[in-house]
């Protein structure tokens, strides 16, 4: 049996009626060892902030495990939430508080560098955009990452790596233009 999927539609400008949660940006609670603020701005093709986007993140725990039955390895039992959700503010800013995930074994061999999967929703996006955030202190792991290795342009590759920014990490999402973020077909 094969059913065609329900098509996507834009999130529109009024999702704040329900989607933002008080603890949405808290992938980990305040005070968690190793917690870091990861965030940036969402910008459009004119370089203007996108004040009505929703950014969501999904990631493994620091041991590289998911509290999920479809992770075929032993379950972590950690109950790690792994999920972050943050609407952008009037300046296009978003941020989550999280911890760096562990590296992951890749099916077929190889190891994926620590990363987060990211979904971007906004008015004007008829489907979500998917991208990834990698970590700037993982140069060696990043060099061996299968997804990064599949992107020939080093400048584009570099745009998937967050930048150290004070105590935190900065990851701007450019929907369009010279600095356009590489988006992923999932």
């Amino acid at each position, binding site marked *: 049996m094969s059913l065609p999927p*329900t098509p996507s539609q834009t999130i529109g400008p009024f999702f704040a009626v329900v989607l933002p949660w008080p603890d949405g940006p808290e992938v980990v609670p305040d005070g968690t060892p190793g917690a870091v603020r990861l965030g940036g701005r969402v910008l459009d093709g004119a370089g203007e902030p996108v004040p009505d986007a929703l950014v969501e993140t999904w990631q493994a725990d620091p041991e590289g495990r998911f509290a999920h039955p479809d992770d*075929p390895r032993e379950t972590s039992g950690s109950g790690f939430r792994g999920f972050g959700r943050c609407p952008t503010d009037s300046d296009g800013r978003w941020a989550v508080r999280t911890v760096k995930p562990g590296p992951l074994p890749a099916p077929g*061999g190889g190891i994926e560098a620590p990363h987060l999967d990211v979904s971007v929703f906004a008015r004007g996006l008829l489907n979500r*955009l998917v991208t990834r955030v990698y970590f700037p202190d993982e140069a060696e792991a990043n060099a061996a990452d299968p997804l990064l290795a599949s992107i020939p342009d080093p400048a584009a590759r570099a745009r998937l790596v967050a930048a150290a920014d004070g105590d935190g990490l900065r990851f701007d999402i450019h929907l369009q233009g010279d600095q356009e973020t*590489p988006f992923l077909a999932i």
Partner: protein
Amino acid sequence: MPDTPNGGKAGARLVVPGYAPEAPGAHPPLDWPAYASTRLRHPRRPLVPLPHRLTEVTGPLLGEGRVGETDHDLTVQHGGEPQGERIVVEGRVLDGDGRPVGGTLVEIWQANAAGRYRHDGDRHPAPLDPNFSGAGRCLTDAEGRWRFVTVKPGAYPWKNHHNAWRPAHIHFSLFGRAFTQRLITQMYFPGDPLFPYDPILGSVPEAARERLVSRLELDATVPEWALGYRWDIVLRGRDATLFEDEEDDA
């Protein structure tokens, strides 16, 4: 192949349940000039293929503690009943293989019966309803079923083009079981005369448009009380060809 630093089996022996690729035209294009807001917000470079690995085939399993007692009934969340036509909206969440997606969080939001959202950005000069927030949440049951009681949202004008009006719709957000299945979409009501003029519904290839339209369902109707509409949501299914592993001992 050495073991990975995070324990367990090395990647070469890892089998993950991939998800089926989606056919061209299953979803709207990102570049859709008739919807003006897409102009500066769609990427111009080709998307980079992301094979499904562990992060993609897992996903947030949310819901515990996120759904309140009256979250599924948008007509009882305030002191009195909201104005408008009371309706029941129900359906199932299935994957592309027809399997129910149980225990998944469904979040909805909508305009009130007059076509106004409870949101600072909504400037439509239609009345707000003190008894209506337009926000709902529920978890699907083991059979993938969900059900909301609400009022039928009104059509409303927007500034996409001269005399632009959105057909009545309810926004839906779904997680499914994996990051690959995340979906945000809109449900419409059958026979809405605004369909031909709406560039958002119109962005969906014609053959797929009906998948966004609910149907009047007498079995969902509560006699003497509320009309019922039914709408099934299909998230993408599993890939038939898994990563095979000649020495899997899982």
